[in-house]
């Protein structure tokens, strides 16, 4: 499962939405979630990993998930991206 977004927030992925993404990924113990951008892939269970992508407005980010609830994980993460005004589906 994967879904790609374009970052629309002026500040890029900043601490608040990164916190929300990581908290959401952490809820699913049976699945792993990753973010891929600029040729780099990080686990979404790490706030430092997410921030280390250095995502700015206009960048693309692809969310992927593996494991038992992968569809749910992607749905929950998409909700965060959209509700936080962080990105839009590409």
């Amino acid at each position, binding site marked *: 499962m994967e879904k790609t977004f374009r970052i629309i927030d002026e*500040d*890029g992925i*900043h*601490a*608040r939405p*990164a*916190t929300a993404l*990581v*908290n959401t990924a952490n809820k699913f113990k049976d699945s792993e979630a990753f973010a891929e951008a600029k040729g780099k892939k*990080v*686990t979404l*269970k*790490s*706030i*430092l*990993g997410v*921030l*280390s992508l*250095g995502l*700015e407005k206009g960048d693309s980010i692809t969310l992927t998930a593996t494991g038992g609830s992968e569809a749910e994980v992607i749905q929950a993460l998409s909700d965060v991206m959209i509700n936080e005004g962080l990105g839009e589906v590409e």
Partner: protein
Amino acid sequence: MIKIEGIAASAGVAIAPAFKLEHPDLTVQQRSVSDVAAEVAKLNAALDKSKAELEAIKERTLQELGAKKAEIFEAHLLILNDPELISPVEDMIRNEMVNAEYALNETANQFIAMFENMKSAYLQERAADMKDVTKRVLIHLLGLNYVNPAEISEEVVVIAEDLTPSDTAQLNRKYVKGFTTNIGGRTSHSAIMARSLEIPAVVGTKEVLAKVNNGDLVIVDGLDGKVIINPTEELVADYRNKQEKYQLQIEEWRKLRDQATVSSDGVHVELAANIGTPNDVPGVIDNGGEAVGLYRTEFLYMGRDKLPTEEIQFNAYKTVLEKMEGKPVVVRTLDIGGDKELPYLDLPKEMNPFLGFRAVRLCLDRTDIFRTQLRALLRASVYGNLRIMFPMIATLDEFRQAKALLLEEKDKLAAEGIEVSDEIQLGIMVEIPSTAIIADQFAKEVDFFSIGTNDLIQYTMAADRMNERVSYLYQPYNPAILRLVKMVIDAAHKEGKWAGMCGEMAGDPTAIPLLLGLGLDEFSMSATSILPARSQISKLSKADMAELAAKALTMQTAAQVVELVKSIDA
């Protein structure tokens, strides 16, 4: 007992035991360890303590300051739970058999370096979060006896070299009754925070930290800029009185919030506020401001890497005008150059920045910058009561040129079918003696004057107030200054125009009786000075103050003028 003089940064009186906020020595040494399991256990214990602290701070911040302020601590908690941080630290302890604090410090520094090298300024600042979190854990690992300011749970006066934004954000108003710092001035970060938290504060004491021990009883007199360590019982009683009186006075002042400012003999003057950003407007309203007397537009130009667009400016001006709901807003056009730098303009260094290429001089040269600002202002004018003011005007010619550019932009907008208000008043800031001297000629062409005393005094006395060796010449009450102020006010009134003042002098309780007597129509000051000034003016008779001012103009020294003003109360 020790008395120390400082700068009164936030009004009020605090009496409480001292809490010295000194940042601990976090120097980390590399050591070899043999019991790796014990070292990992030490790491986990330190992490658990840190998390418990953060949970508590987060909870309290949530209760007292709301979700937005608590988010930062939520992010800190996530960092401490982050496998990308914790696993490498554990691996390093195991593989290299080194001490936990060294492993943590090394790993954290890699993340700090990563953030510091990021392109986005926002992400660069995240290095500060990483440092904060690392520091918290290191304190436990090093077994230091350090109390974080956020964990203060008894009434104290905080004493520090200076307070960082993160320190001040963590101060709990319930327990921190006041603070005092060695460094800083009235406009330093900590002073501004103290005023917004309404905590009494004295800054710039130079020596307070060295003179006080934890637990010493301390009085912080934010009204007169004094700090007293281990006061006598008698003095404590005096200050308790002063504290109560001040509380009562604040309650009295609050009653004046929605009233006009009228002298005891029925003359109305306007009390306005100086602001820097649209965010300052609620403070103006809350403190009963009748207008914005000076909106400094420099902040729009600072802290970015290129000129602000017309749209960015338009939105800021519109917001201020709308929030003021039809009350007058005097916007000062760009006052930059000389000592106030804008790196992206690439201006040459000058020998005498104060006498140099700045403010309206720069705008009349870089008309591209100026026209953009004028267009944004004109477009915003329909959203409220706009007044435009040009800074640093030295000659009539400069005013005429600036006005011509404004009219050109107005015509262009009209041609584009964009609506512009017809009621915009056009004024100048009087801060150069030449302008004050021919104020009679200016008064025929401008709609108003606003006297900028900070510069007018420096230029008249030829003394830089920041230069300690000559700052004694910065004399607001010098008869020379008062005579210039009178010339400007009289010239305005002769032509049926109004005269205001937007320098620090306008909010100064010693100057207010004189300025009222000289006939000043508008006083623009920091928002928190408005209610005290309103209260003061309501007790003064303008007719009596006119006599007082006339006498002051004949005095020979500033000291004599001050003595004369003080005699009103006696």
